[in-house]
């Protein structure tokens, strides 16, 4: 396909592109293990770009390897390590509103006398009292700093859609009349860090995701082409999104790799 001409580097979202979650267990999306292998065999550099914050990066990679994916930790870009870097650079000590399973990503961070709030997909931890603690921490600051790991609206879990961190980020923004700093997709700095790591320019790179705004919209704002897959949280209304038009829409990652290799990607 013409829209894929000249693509020789690929960024892959993980949840909803490589795998789904059903009753707490990971399930590979059919054809996706092989699709990753075919990309690697064709010599196309790959990075995995995820907003996953319900687990550590290491645990996520272990789980994907168990499903049969060829994936290494250094190929995975997730928000928590990026946030730790931001905290160091800005001298910030976080109050964490995150998933218990992701807390280990912040072990090395000073959390005494918090001067910012970091919010991730805390799932069951998004109780009223936990939201309130985050709110009270923010409202007590002269200049409240809220850092959000992604700003997704919802995602799919066990065949139903559930609220993502973006909704809770918006709640705290509204309560304190502030704007959060987003680390992770769709922020440009996140995509640019991945490009830098691959030593590629936006024009030769393709992002593949199931989130029309965070994946497709975010990448396109950086000049990166973007493919929407009809797996994961995909809904048919995404194809008529008022602002975001994917460069290509495919049924799944497997079909995308077919199209990409047929378009002569790298070969």
């Amino acid at each position: 396909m013409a829209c894929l001409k000249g693509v020789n580097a690929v960024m892959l979202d993980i949840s909803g592109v490589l795998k789904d979650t059903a009753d707490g267990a990971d399930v590979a999306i059919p054809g996706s293990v092989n699709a990753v292998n075919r990309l690697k065999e064709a010599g196309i550099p790959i990075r995995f770009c995820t907003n996953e914050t319900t687990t550590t990066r290491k645990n996520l990679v272990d789980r994907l390897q168990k499903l049969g994916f060829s994936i290494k930790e250094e190929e995975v870009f997730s928000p928590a390590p990026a946030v730790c870097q931001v905290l160091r650079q800005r001298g910030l000590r976080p109050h964490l509103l995150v998933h218990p399973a992701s807390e280990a990503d912040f072990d090395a961070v000073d959390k005494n006398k918090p001067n910012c709030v970091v919010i991730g997909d805390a799932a069951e931890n998004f109780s009223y009292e936990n939201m309130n603690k985050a709110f009270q921490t923010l409202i007590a600051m002269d200049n409240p700093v809220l850092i959000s790991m992604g700003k997704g609206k919802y995602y799919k879990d066990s065949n139903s859609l559930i609220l993502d961190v973006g909704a809770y980020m918006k709640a705290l923004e509204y309560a304190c009349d502030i704007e959060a700093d987003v680390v992770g997709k769709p922020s440009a700095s996140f995509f640019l860090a991945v490009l830098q790591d691959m030593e590629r320019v936006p024009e030769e790179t393709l992002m593949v995701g199931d989130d029309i705004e965070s994946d497709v919209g975010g990448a396109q704002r950086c000049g990166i082409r973007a493919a929407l897959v009809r797996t994961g949280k995909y809904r048919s209304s995404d194809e008529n999104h008022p602002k975001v038009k994917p460069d290509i829409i495919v049924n799944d990652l497997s079909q995308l790799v077919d199209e990409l290799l047929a378009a002569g990607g790298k070969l």
Partner: protein
Amino acid sequence: MSSGACTVNTVLIDLSGTIHIEDTEIPGSVKALERLQKSKVNIKFVTNTTKESKRVLLERLHSIGFNVKGEEIFTSLTAARYLIEQRKLHPLLMVDEKALEDFEGVSTENQDAVVVGLAPEKFDYNTMNQAFRLILSGAPLIAIHKGRYYKRKDGLALGPGPFVTALEFATGQKADIVGKPELSFFLSAVEEFSVAPSQCIMIGDQSTA
């Protein structure tokens, strides 16, 4: 009096801050109300409440000495109920336990709407997800109000506004707000009188609400 003012035949009266403060009468208001009631004007007490049911409000007013009847009170909860009945909705009620009695008789089976008041115990992760999925599949989101926070014994605490905003963002659906100062609130409050807005006067203590 000018002839324009003489056409007023309906009086809307705020409660807290206008005729009473907590359990105390604002001096002269019991008498003033008696005089109004003897004249032929329509009277409606209008107030934003997210927790207190009509019965609780009435009990307080009676104990202070006001002669007020239940049907004379129109609250933001009444407005929500009015909207629900008008549109024949079956709501998921994210409202305080104490406010539930104002929704007595409303069917909550096969839910197709979401009503959000001030109800910290209903803002848990599971109920929020349930509300989110209903709205995403087309259920209207009805907010009693969008207050950012309120005062609690241990300091400030999140109001319904942040949670309504979360649901609005995730679903792309704007909430219908039913309390003061929404136009629909005032129109519904006087609907039974069949009067024009220009025949009504509102007496309150807050210029913005």
